[in-house]
C-alpha cells in the first residue's frame, strides 16, 4: 500500500542506500575507477567541485565525484559539508596574481600586450568533433606538448598595468586600512552587500546560474557590453605568517583563473571618463565562470553607481540569494519530502470553496428556472 511505503522507515532507508552503492559501482566486471584517475583525467570537473565547494583539495574533490557518481552538484555539496567541519588556523596573506605562473593568458582589448597572448591548453578553436580514438581505449599515446622557444615573461604584467600610465581603467587599488573581508561562510547574507561579500558569493556560486545571468545582461536584460580585458590562469603561491615566525612563508600553490572585464563604454560623472572594471577569480581552470563573475560584478557596480535596477543581473538581492547551488538544490528538492499535513489543510479549504461554488451555481440556476427569461419574452 502506498501509505506504508511512505512510512518505510529505517529498513527502507538502509536498503535504498545499499542499492545506491550498487548503482554507483556499475557493472562489477568493469574495473573500478581510481580516485587518482578522476583527479588526473577529469581535472576540469575537479576544478568545478573545488570552486563551488569552496575547498581547494584535488584528492577530496576526486573522491566526492566518485562517491556522487559524477553528479557535480552532489559532489560540491559533499565538499561543502566536509569543509564546514574543518578548524581554521589563520588567514593567508593576500594572493598576488601578478606573480601567477601563467599557463594561459589572453586579452581581447589589444592585439598584443606586454607578456604576449599565450593560448595555453584551451578548448578554444578545437573543432568539437568526437574523437573516436579516445573511445578505442585511449588509442595512441598523445604526443607531449612542445616547449616554447623563449621563456615566458615573468612576472607577466596584468591588464591594469597596461592602462595605468593613462589612468584609463578604473583601478582596484589595495586598501590596507580596509576591515577584514566579509565571510559568508561565517556570517549570513547582509544587504547592502559590500563588494567583498558579493565577490565571495559569486566565487562560490553556481557556474550555470552565473553564466545565465551574465548572458542575460549581454542580451538586453541589463545594458552590458563588456569586453575581456584579460583572462589568465596558472599557479599562485600562498603565503602565510605563522605567529612564531612573524614573517611570511610559502605554504603551497593554488591553480586559479582570473578575469578582468572592461565596461564597453566610458564611465564618468564628476570624474574624468574612464573604463570600469569587473573582476572574477575562481579556483582551478574555470574560464566560463570567472568571465561570468566579472560581468556580474560590472552589472552590480553599475547599479551601485545609480543605474536603474531594471534587470535581474543588476539586483544584488536577486543575484546573491539565488547563486548558491547547495542552497538552491536542497530547497528545490525538499519538495520531495512529505507535505501531506499542509496539503490536508489545503484540501479542507478547497473542498469548502468548491461546495460553496456549486451551491451558488445551483441557487442561480433555480432562480433562472423560476423566472421567465428575457429571450422568451422577446420571442
Amino acid at each position: 500500500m502506498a501509505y506504508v511505503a511512505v512510512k518505510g522507515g529505517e529498513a527502507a532507508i538502509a536498503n535504498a542506500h545499499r542499492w545506491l552503492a550498487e548503482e554507483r559501482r556499475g557493472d562489477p566486471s568493469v574495473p573500478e575507477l581510481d580516485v587518482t584517475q578522476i583527479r588526473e583525467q577529469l581535472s576540469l570537473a575537479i576544478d568545478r567541485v573545488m570552486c563551488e565547494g569552496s575547498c581547494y583539495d584535488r584528492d577530496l574533490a576526486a573522491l566526492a565525484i566518485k562517491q556522487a557518481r559524477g553528479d557535480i552538484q552532489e559532489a560540491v555539496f559533499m565538499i561543502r559539508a566536509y569543509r564546514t567541519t574543518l578548524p581554521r588556523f589563520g588567514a593567508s596573506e593576500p594572493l598576488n596574481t601578478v606573480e601567477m605562473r601563467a599557463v594561459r593568458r589572453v586579452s581581447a582589448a589589444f592585439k598584443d600586450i606586454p607578456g604576449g597572448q599565450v593560448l595555453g591548453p584551451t578548448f578554444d578553436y578545437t573543432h568539437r568533433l568526437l574523437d573516436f580514438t579516445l573511445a578505442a581505449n585511449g588509442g595512441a599515446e598523445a604526443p607531449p606538448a612542445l616547449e616554447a622557444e623563449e621563456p615566458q615573461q615573468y612576472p607577466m604584467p596584468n591588464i591594469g598595468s597596461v592602462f595605468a600610465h593613462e589612468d584609463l581603467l578604473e583601478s582596484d587599488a589595495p586598501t590596507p586600512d580596509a576591515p577584514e573581508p566579509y565571510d559568508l561562510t561565517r556570517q549570513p547574507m547582509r544587504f547592502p552587500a559590500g563588494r567583498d561579500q558579493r565577490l565571495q558569493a559569486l566565487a562560490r556560486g553556481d557556474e550555470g546560474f552565473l553564466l545565465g545571468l551574465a548572458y542575460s545582461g549581454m542580451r538586453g536584460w541589463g545594458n552590458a557590453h563588456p569586453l575581456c580585458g584579460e583572462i589568465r590562469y596558472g599557479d599562485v603561491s600562498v603565503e602565510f605568517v605563522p605567529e612564531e615566525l612573524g614573517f611570511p612563508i610559502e605554504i603551497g600553490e593554488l591553480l586559479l583563473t582570473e578575469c578582468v572585464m572592461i565596461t564597453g563604454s566610458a564611465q564618468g560623472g564628476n570624474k574624468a571618463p574612464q573604463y570600469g572594471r569587473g573582476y572574477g577569480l575562481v579556483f582551478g581552470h574555470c574560464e566560463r565562470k570567472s568571465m561570468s563573475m566579472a560581468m556580474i560584478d560590472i552589472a552590480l557596480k553599475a547599479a551601485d553607481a545609480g543605474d536603474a535596477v531594471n534587470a535581474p543581473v543588476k539586483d544584488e538581492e536577486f543575484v546573491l540569494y539565488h547563486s548558491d547551488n547547495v542552497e538552491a538544490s536542497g530547497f528545490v528538492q525538499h519538495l520531495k519530502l512529505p507535505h501531506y499535513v499542509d496539503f490536508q489543510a489545503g484540501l479542507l479549504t478547497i473542498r469548502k470553496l468548491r461546495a460553496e461554488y456549486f451551491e451558488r451555481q445551483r441557487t442561480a440556476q433555480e432562480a433562472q428556472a423560476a423566472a421567465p427569461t428575457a429571450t422568451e419574452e422577446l420571442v
Partner: protein
Amino acid sequence: MNPQKSNQPAQQYSYAYLDEQTKRMIRRSILKALAIPGYQVPFGSREMPVPYGWGTGGIQVTAALIGPDDVFKCIDQGADDTTNAVSIRQFFAKVADVATTEDTSEATIIQSRHRIPEKTLKQGQIMVMQVPQPEPLRTMEARETETRAMHAYEEYGVQYVSLYQSVAAHGRITIGATYPVMVNERYLMGPSPIPKFDNPKINQSEAIMLFGAGREKRIYAVPPHTDVRSLDFEDYPFEVQTWDEICALCGSEDSYLDEVVLDDQGNRMFVCSDTHHCSVRRDAGHAGPLAGHALGSAKEAAE
C-alpha cells in the same frame, strides 16, 4: 558522561557534529531570539551533511542544545517513522550518542517538521521547528532589505491587506498552514508550515519553542508563557481545522487527521497525523471504525 563514544572511532567529528565555537555562536543567537520573542536573529548557519530545506536549521539548533542526558524525539508530518524524521533521529543517535524516543512526554528535545504534537508540552521540554522560510512577509515582499525594515517599524499593514483580499475573494481567510501570528504583540511571525490547527499550541506554552531556518540563516523563538495571537478580523475570527470524520484507528475526535487514499475509487480513511498520540490511545483501548487496519500495524511491521 562519555561524549566521545560515538564520535571518536570512525570519524573525527565533534560531539553533535558542530564544533564548539559554532555551537556557542548558535546558542548566543538562541538566547537573543528568546530575549526578543518573534524576532528573526541572523546567524552564521553552516552547511550540514543533509541538504538545505531538509531540516538544517532545526538540526543546528538541536546540535547546539543537545547533551548526552537528553532524550530526543524527531517527527515529520507528526509521524516518528517518516523517512526524513528517521534520518535525523539516526543522525543524532550517532553523533550525539543520545537516547531517542517516540514518546512525546518523555522527550526533552522534540525536533519537528510541519506539526506540534497533540500532547500538551510541559516545562523543561524544547520544541525545535524546522523552518523553510522564516519571513512571514516574503510572499508579499520579495526583498529582505524591505521586510527587515517593515519588522523594525512594525509595519504590518500589507499582511492585513493580504488577509482581507482572501476574505474578499473567497469569503474567508483561506490560509491552512503557515498561518501568521503576532508574538507578544510586537513581531509578526511565521509559525513554520504547521497547520493553523497547531497555532494555539504555541500560545502560552510551557515549553520553549525554537525555530531554525538553515538556508535562510535565521533563528527565532517563543519563550514559555508568551502571548501568540493568530491574526484575524472581528467579523472573521480565527478558527482551526475540523473534520466530520474521526480517526479510523483510535476514534480520536479532536486530533489533526491525515487523509489516506485507499484506492482510486474515492475511498478514504482518516487517521491521526500524530502517530504516537494515536498509538497511545489505541493501547489505552480506544478504537475507531477501522481499528485493526494494516495501517495501525505499519509502524510495528517496519521495526
